[in-house]
């Protein structure tokens, strides 16, 4: 029983990634510090760095559209602060 449940849940699983970044006009002081440090390390052709967050999400669902909508809802409700952040959802194989 337990084994079968595991098999099923594997089959039903859809995986997504969510990348959250600060909006273009929001100052990213952490990104700036990382950039300056890399410049100090001699990465002279470095032009710009923005720091962000990355989430890997597994959804127990077979329908890709429904699952993506769920991830969208997660972003809007909690994962992203829409005032200052943008997000991108990708489907993982």
């Amino acid at each position: 029983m337990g084994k079968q449940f595991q098999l099923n849940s594997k089959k039903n699983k859809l995986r997504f990634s969510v990348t959250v970044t600060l909006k273009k006009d929001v100052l990213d002081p952490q990104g700036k510090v990382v950039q300056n440090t890399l410049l100090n390390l001699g990465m002279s052709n470095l032009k710009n760095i923005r720091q962000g967050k990355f989430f890997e999400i597994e959804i127990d669902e077979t329908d890709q559209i429904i699952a993506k909508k769920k991830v969208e809802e997660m972003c809007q409700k909690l994962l992203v602060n829409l005032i200052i952040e943008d997000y991108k959802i990708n489907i993982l194989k």
Partner: protein
Amino acid sequence: MKSSVIVFPGSNCDRDIAVALEKLQFKNKMVWHKETSLPKSDLIVIPGGFSYGDYLRSGAIAGKSLIIDEVIKAANSGCLVLGICNGFQILTETGLLKGTLLRNKNLRFINRDVNIKVINNQTKFSSKYKSNQILKINIAHNEGNYFTNSKHLDQLKKDNLIAFKYCDENGNVNESSNPNGALENIAGIYNTKKNILGMMPHPERMVDDIISNTDGINLFSGLIN
């Protein structure tokens, strides 16, 4: 006057605010975040600290906790709500106050006494202060850099919703008197009905001359009357 202080895992200014409130004769109750009902309150305080270890974003997880639905209901029906420091961050995450608190511009945790100016003294929270009065209040935060969109900033100015601004000891509001990079030196704001105040400085730490000063007392004593 009855008050409730909401306590989250990681709150660490909850007892300070309780001491301040009781000193000013509030009948105070501590309310754990898992509660689903609030005691009858005239004032709800969301205290400072590091609720949920600042996971995800400061205030993000606390902003979705069980008790918050009740806080939102009470706030919408006119109850006074005060969010201090992490409490301010939580209020922005619930949407009760607009805008957000970004990482300090200098990337450092700042813990020191700063000067702030009373911008609006026509609210229940500020009626005991003089207009443009300068207060010395402690700040202790890593994310106090207030940010909002230009439309909301215009509304804050037009409707007189800016509560306090960082200034120097002579009251000058400028870049050198801005500790954390906050937009237009904003240290605290009201909602449109002015029953909700969010502020980064800690008035509850300024109620006793023995340990600091008493610049914070008027904020609480104004509410009693």
